[in-house]
């Protein structure tokens, strides 16, 4: 896959998306800036998760889902018939709302991806496991029990394990779909710190209902409403002086 040195790792232009007859995204355009955190906010059902999932073709798994428009990843059309979907999902990883570790050991969870991609050397796998767990800020808590079940970890640890699992295959972009909504404030704070740390080497797109979270950690924010990108811009601008009245009403809580 060819990547360019452009500032935008993903370019979304005039995207429309349907689930069967129901249109969920309307003419959505936005850039995803490299090595930045982009937050997507908006009321339930506004299309933010749909947009996020369309960035690594997760919506392919939904029957009757159809997308028009252009979505480029490093200059390559994500939706071109020639695009290797697995390759896209390797480079654009995803973290879900509920942590979903595999029912296996911590080590196997992290090494699962690299093994599928053909890494067999034990030492190399160990190195990937350690590096990924260090990067996901979990290593210190689990290094002495790597062969214990991942299901014994706390919710926050499981979520960081899922992040380690995504990092193990060296993605460029990490999509996070409300990654802290099932976590307590302490675990949430760790995930937020982690997202800010990851920003140095990766690009993060996060869907969140927590507006303070969006303002705390993101560089860019997109506010979506009824399937449209109502406003996109620097987070500071969106939360200080939004251009659109609708955005102002949403972020100040005067909505509906």
């Amino acid at each position: 896959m060819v990547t360019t040195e452009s500032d935008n790792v993903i370019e979304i232009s005039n995207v429309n998306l349907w689930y069967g007859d129901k249109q969920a995204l309307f003419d959505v355009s936005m850039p995803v800036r490299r090595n930045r955190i982009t937050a997507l906010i908006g009321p339930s059902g506004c299309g933010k998760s749909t947009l996020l999932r369309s960035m690594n073709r997760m919506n392919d798994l939904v029957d009757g889902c159809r997308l028009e428009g252009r979505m480029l990843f490093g200059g390559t059309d994500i939706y071109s018939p020639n695009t290797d979907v697995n390759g896209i999902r390797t480079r654009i990883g995803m973290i879900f709302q509920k942590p979903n570790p595999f029912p296996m050991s911590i080590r196997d969870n992290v090494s699962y991806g690299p093994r599928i991609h053909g890494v067999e050397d034990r030492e190399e796998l160990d190195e990937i496991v350690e590096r990924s767990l260090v990067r996901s800020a979990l290593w210190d808590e689990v290094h002495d029990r790597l062969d214990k079940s991942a299901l014994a970890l706390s919710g926050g640890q499981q979520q960081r394990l899922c992040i380690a699992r995504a990092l193990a295959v060296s993605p460029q972009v990490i999509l996070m779909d409300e990654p802290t909504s099932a976590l307590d404030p302490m675990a949430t704070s760790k995930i937020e710190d982690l997202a800010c740390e990851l920003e140095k080497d990766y690009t993060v797109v996060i869907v969140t209902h927590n507006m303070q979270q969006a303002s705390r950690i993101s560089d860019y924010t997109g506010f979506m409403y009824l399937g449209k990108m109502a406003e996109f811009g620097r987070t500071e601008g969106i939360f200080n002086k939004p251009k659109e009245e609708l955005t102002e009403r949403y972020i100040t809580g005067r909505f509906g």
Partner: protein
Amino acid sequence: MKRFEDDMGRLLETTRDLGSLVCSTIDGAVRAFCERDTDLAREMAERYQRISDLHSVLEEDTLRILTLYQPTAVDMRTVATVLKAITYLERIGKYSKKIAKATIFLSDDISAEGMEGIPEMGSVAVRMVKLAVGSLIDGDTSGLDEISQQEHFLDTLRNSVIRRNTELLRDCPAAADVLMRYMSVSRYLERVGDNSCDIAEKVAYMVTGRHVEIGA
């Protein structure tokens, strides 16, 4: 949301009270100075305590609103503006007190020499405070240009007051006590103007989200 809006409503109402109190105090202090009215000067000097108390109440209210509600956008800009503006208002209150004290000190001096230009400075400064407080309370930026113009005028007047009093001081060093007081009063009025500009800048930020410099 209702609780937040009630708290914001009360915050703005109390800010309005402080604004009106400061306006009438600086107005009274300047009038007392020009008319050598020591009774009025005493009354204005005593008012500073009320200004200071109200300032403290508002400071606590703004910090409480920030802590409890973490406002955003126009709400955040309004709370931030109030937090800054009340400091400027309190300072104007303090200068009013200093002018009132100078009036009481000067009550024995019947000579009006050295006064020249100060009453005019007083009316310009009072006008600036009224414009700034009005714009803060109404969230209206239409008076900001005038504040900027008045600020330049105030500076010009201040320079001539200083020049005149320096000459008088050279000719009559024995009157130093009185002349220095006049110069101080002109300095207080100049600072009142500066603080009005500061309020105006914050109001511009509150309304437009952009930082501007007024009267620089």
